[in-house]
C-alpha cells in the first residue's frame, strides 16, 4: 500500500506541485474581497469549477459505440457540466450587471 502511494507520488509529482501552489493562490487571490462581492464571487467560482465538463467530454468522446451505459451517462454528464458552466457565468454576469447599473446613476 505504502509502496503504491510512493509510486503515485512519484509519477504525479508535478500535479501535486500544481495543487499545493493553487491552494495558496486561491487563498491569496480572494482574501481582500469586500462583503458586497461575496455572492457574485461565489457564483463566479461556481462557474469556474464547471471545468469538470472537460472530464465529461473526454469520457464521452472515448466511449465505445456499443457501450450504451457509458454513452448515456457521459451524455448526461456533458449536459450537466454545460449547465454548470453556462448557467454559472450567465447568472454571475446578471448579478454584476446590477452593480454596474447602480454605479452609473
Amino acid at each position, binding site marked *: 500500500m505504502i509502496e503504491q502511494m510512493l509510486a503515485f507520488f512519484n509519477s504525479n509529482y508535478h500535479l501535486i506541485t500544481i495543487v499545493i501552489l493553487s491552494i495558496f493562490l486561491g487563498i491569496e487571490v480572494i482574501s481582500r474581497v469586500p462583503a458586497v462581492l*461575496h455572492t457574485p464571487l461565489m457564483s463566479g467560482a461556481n462557474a469556474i469549477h464547471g471545468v469538470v465538463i472537460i472530464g465529461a467530454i473526454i469520457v464521452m468522446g472515448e466511449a465505445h459505440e456499443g457501450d450504451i451505459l457509458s454513452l448515456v451517462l457521459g451524455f448526461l454528464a456533458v449536459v450537466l457540466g454545460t449547465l454548470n458552466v453556462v448557467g454559472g457565468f450567465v447568472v454571475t454576469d446578471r448579478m454584476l450587471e446590477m452593480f454596474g447599473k447602480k454605479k452609473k446613476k
Partner: protein
Amino acid sequence: MEQFQELLSTNPFLLLSYLIGSITFIMGLKMLSHPETARKGNMIAAVGMTLSIFTTIFLYKNHNGEGLHNYVWIFAALVIGTVVGTMAAKKVQMTSMPEMVSLFNGMGGACAMLISLIEYNSDLQPAAGKLIIIVLGMIIGTVSFAGSMVAWGKLNGRIKDRTIPGGQVINFAIFGAVIFLSAMVVGGYTGNHAVFYAILGFAALYGILFVMPIGGADMPVVISLLNSFTGVAAAFGGFLYNNPVMLTGGILVGSAGTILTILMCKAMNRSLMNVLIGSFGAKPGAAGPGGNKEQGNAKEISLNDTAVLMAYAQKVMIIPGYGLAVAQAQHTCHELEKVLTERGVEVSYGIHPVAGRMPGHMNVLLAEADVPYEKLLEMEDANDQMGGVNVVMILGANDVVNPAAKDDPSSPIYGMPILEVEKADHVIVNKRSMKPGYAGIENELFFRPKTSMLFGDAKKVLQDLVSELKNV
C-alpha cells in the same frame, strides 16, 4: 514520470490552451474580488473556459494517439446544456439567485459523480492510485450534488428545516461507513460493484442529512462550502486525466471557496462550526440567554396609523432584510419610496452589509427595482444620520437591528455591528410573526417603547401602505 512524458507528447496547442485557461481563471477570480473589474473578470474566465472546452474536443488525444469521437453526442449535449442553462439563468428572479447558484453547483457535482461512475465501470483492473481518485471524486461529487439539491429545495421553500434527533451521530456513522467501504474497494478487498454503489448511496445520504438541519438563512454559507467541494471534485478529474486546467480550476475554487465561506461567516460574526451545527441553538427552549427573560408585550400599530406617521415625517429610513427578499417586495418598496418622496418626505435606505444573510443581497435586490444608488446608505452612514430620522421602517430584518449585539455580552451575536435604529424617533417593524430570526434569539427591540409592530407579509403590507398613503 511516465505520465509527465505522456503530457509532453500531447498536442502543444492543447497544452497552451490549458495554460491560457488556467491563467484566465486566476485573473477572473482576482478581478471578481474588485467592484470595478468584477464583470470583466467573469467574462475573461468564461472565454478561457470556452477555449479549453473546444480545444479539448478537437485536439485531445489519449495515450494511444486516438482523438475523441461521438462528436454528435458531445455537441448535442453542449447545445442542450447551453440553451437550458442560459434560459434558466436569464429567467431567474434576482431574489432567487442563491438557489440558482446552488442548482448549478449541484449539476457540477453530479457531473463529477457521473465521470467517476463511468470510469469505474469501464476500467476493470484500475491501479490503486486511479481507484482512489475515482472513489474520492465520486464521493465528493455526490455529497456536493445531494447537498446542493437540498439547499436549493430549502431556499425555494420546497423542503422545510428538519432536525432529526441524534442527527449528528447518524451523520457520523454514515461518514464512517463511506470511509470504511471506500477503504475496502481501494484496498482491493472487494471487487464487488455493489459495494461501489453502496458508497454512492451513503455519500448521497450524507449530503442530504448534512444540509437538512441547517437553517434557511444560513444557506449561502453552505452553498459556498459545497461550491468548494465541487471544486475539489473537479480537481480529482484533473488527476484522473492528467489535465492541468481541471486541476488548477478545481483547486482554485476549492481553496478560494473555503476562504470565501470563512469570510462570509466572519461578516456575520460567526464561526463556520457555529453555522454547521448551529441548528441546535435555533431550537425552542435553547433560544439563547435572552429567551427566558420576561418580555413585555409588543405594541401593534395599524396600517392607517403607519401611513399617517410616515406621511407627516420629514425623514424616513427603510431597513430591508431577508423578509423583503422572501416576499419579493423590492418593487413595492421602491413604490412606497416614490409616494413618500412626492409628498416631500426624505427617504433613504439603511443597508447592513449582511442583511438578508447573503452579503450584498440587498444592494442587488434594490438595484434591480431601480432604487437610486445614492439613496442606499451603508451602515456607518446610516447610523450617523439615524439621529435626524423620524420614522424607521424595518422590513423583514431582525438580527441586524437587534440591540443585544451591543448590550448583551452573552448573546450569540454580541459584537456584530448593527443599525442603531433606536436613535430615530419611531421604529416600525414589519414582520410576519413574532418568530425570532435565524439565530433563534429574541429581539428586545420589539418590546422597546419606541417600537411598534406591523404584522404581515412585506409585499402585502407595502401595497396596502401605498394605497393608504394616497388617501392621507
